[in-house]
């Protein structure tokens, strides 16, 4: 991990030392061959796509986990859980291909051009849903059974037990799962690359195309040279810092939980 960080800094140094930081924030756009290096539209694209996906995946995943643990009879619950596990094993290219062939034309009929922030959020949601569901499931299943029985003995309703006892007890585990999912969403490349349109801009609506930092590296890295190459490493560095902040937050949560 440290080695990767050192490598990233080393490779992006030619750009960091010659191009002032402000150019990454204030240039007109991203046209590295014409000397414009603004990373902010892509940063906003990355964050918006990830947050949108979390907004959809967290309620859905949490609901699924609660369903498996508290409501579903054992047999359907096992099948449902197996399905979610299967979903987590599908390669991201497959999601991207499905998105390109199904989701993008669908959105296009509704509001062109189809390849958009919304399509990116769609595939990302599917990809992080299993992470949220499975970690929430594990956290909820780990709540001691006697707590639940005690709560039932106190006359709490089924939903009252879930809301008042199980969810607060599993809070840290669920939060850690959400952070993990966020990190995955930030770094996801192929699926987003195929459906999000990859235009460098601040999206004004959900139907505008965006480019994420990871997609930018995948699109341009293979044939970038010199300064172009170095600024791509800068965007990699930025992405890495984002994920490090997230994992730092997860670590902090863990500490608070044990303290």
């Amino acid at each position: 991990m440290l080695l990767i960080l050192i490598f990233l800094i080393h490779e992006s140094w030619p750009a960091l030392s010659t191009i002032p930081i402000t150019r990454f924030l204030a240039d007109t756009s991203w046209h590295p061959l014409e000397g414009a290096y603004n990373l902010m539209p892509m940063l906003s694209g990355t964050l918006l796509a990830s947050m949108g996906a979390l907004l959809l995946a967290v309620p859905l995943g949490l609901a699924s986990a609660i369903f498996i643990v508290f409501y579903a009879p054992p047999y359907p619950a096992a099948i449902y859980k197996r399905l979610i596990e299967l979903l987590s094993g599908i390669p991201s290219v497959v999601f991207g291909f499905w998105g390109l062939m199904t989701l993008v034309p669908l959105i296009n009929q509704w509001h062109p051009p189809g390849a958009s922030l919304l399509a990116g959020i769609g595939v990302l949601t599917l990809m992080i849903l299993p992470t949220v569901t499975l970690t929430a499931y594990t956290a909820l299943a780990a709540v001691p059974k006697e707590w639940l029985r005690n709560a039932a003995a106190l006359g709490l309703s089924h939903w009252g037990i879930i809301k008042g006892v199980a969810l607060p007890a599993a809070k840290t585990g669920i939060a850690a799962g959400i952070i993990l999912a966020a990190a995955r969403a930030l770094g996801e490349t192929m699926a987003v690359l195929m459906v999000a349109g990859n235009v460098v801009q601040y999206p004004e609506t959900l139907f505008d195309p965006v480019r994420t930092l990871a997609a930018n590296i995948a699109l341009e890295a293979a044939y970038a040279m010199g300064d172009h190459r170095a600024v791509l490493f800068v965007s990699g560095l930025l992405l890495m810092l984002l994920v490090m902040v997230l994992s730092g937050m997860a670590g902090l949560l863990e500490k608070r939980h044990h303290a």
Partner: protein
Amino acid sequence: MSMSNHKKILLICVTFIVFGISGLACAYAASERLVLTGSSTVAPLVGEIARRFETKNPAVRIDVQTGGTSRGINDTRNGTADIGMVSRALKPDETDLHAFTIALDGISIILHANNRVAALKKQQIVDIYTGKITNWKSVGGADARITVVNKAEGRSTLELFLHHLELKNSQIKPHTIIGDNPQGIKTVAGNPDAIGYVSIGAAEYEAERGVPIKLLSLDGVDATIANVRKGTFPLSRPLNLITSREPQGLARRFIEFSRSLQIHDLVEVQYFVPVNTVD
């Protein structure tokens, strides 16, 4: 006791290293290797040529990697690749390299097969790509918003396209940006209101296999392989193999093979145009 243990371990390590090196040496002697990197337009053709070359020369291994024309030039200059694949003529600042044309290719504007528009003038294409025309109605099509598909920065197809339209990439207002030819064809095939541009070879190949795209004529010339061969199609380019110095040995044999009559069928299968070699 512990001393002898250490010795044993040392002995085992040394044995492994010696065997490893001799193994490598054997593999090296048994096969000559050639690495080619570069344009995703040229790579499928060179891959087929390489396979045929390998069947004729069983001791040779040829490794073909894509990554765009710039990578081909980069890798050839710094020696990572023996031969680079470049899908355009060399620029004036690239005279340090030697180029060998193996085929010709054209770039075609592609639309979805259901689009009513049959031809566009150069100025109309410029207006569509710069965002002055945003609805197909303005150029004789249905009432629908145009989805402009552009290529990612660095691709030679983009360079050639911009050069022909006399535009800079920052002037283009795209809705979707794509990487390689197949992604471009899939994007246009999946969107009835999209306009994109890809290599004629790839587009004609996919269109004949029933993919719903059509190739648009340019300046009154149909986008066909035949017109590229005649040299009348305005947006055409040579596909080159490049080397950093005068090719020797295996590289030279491979380049000569790639320009010979023996592979013209492979060139035509990929919808490129063979160059006329005299020998």
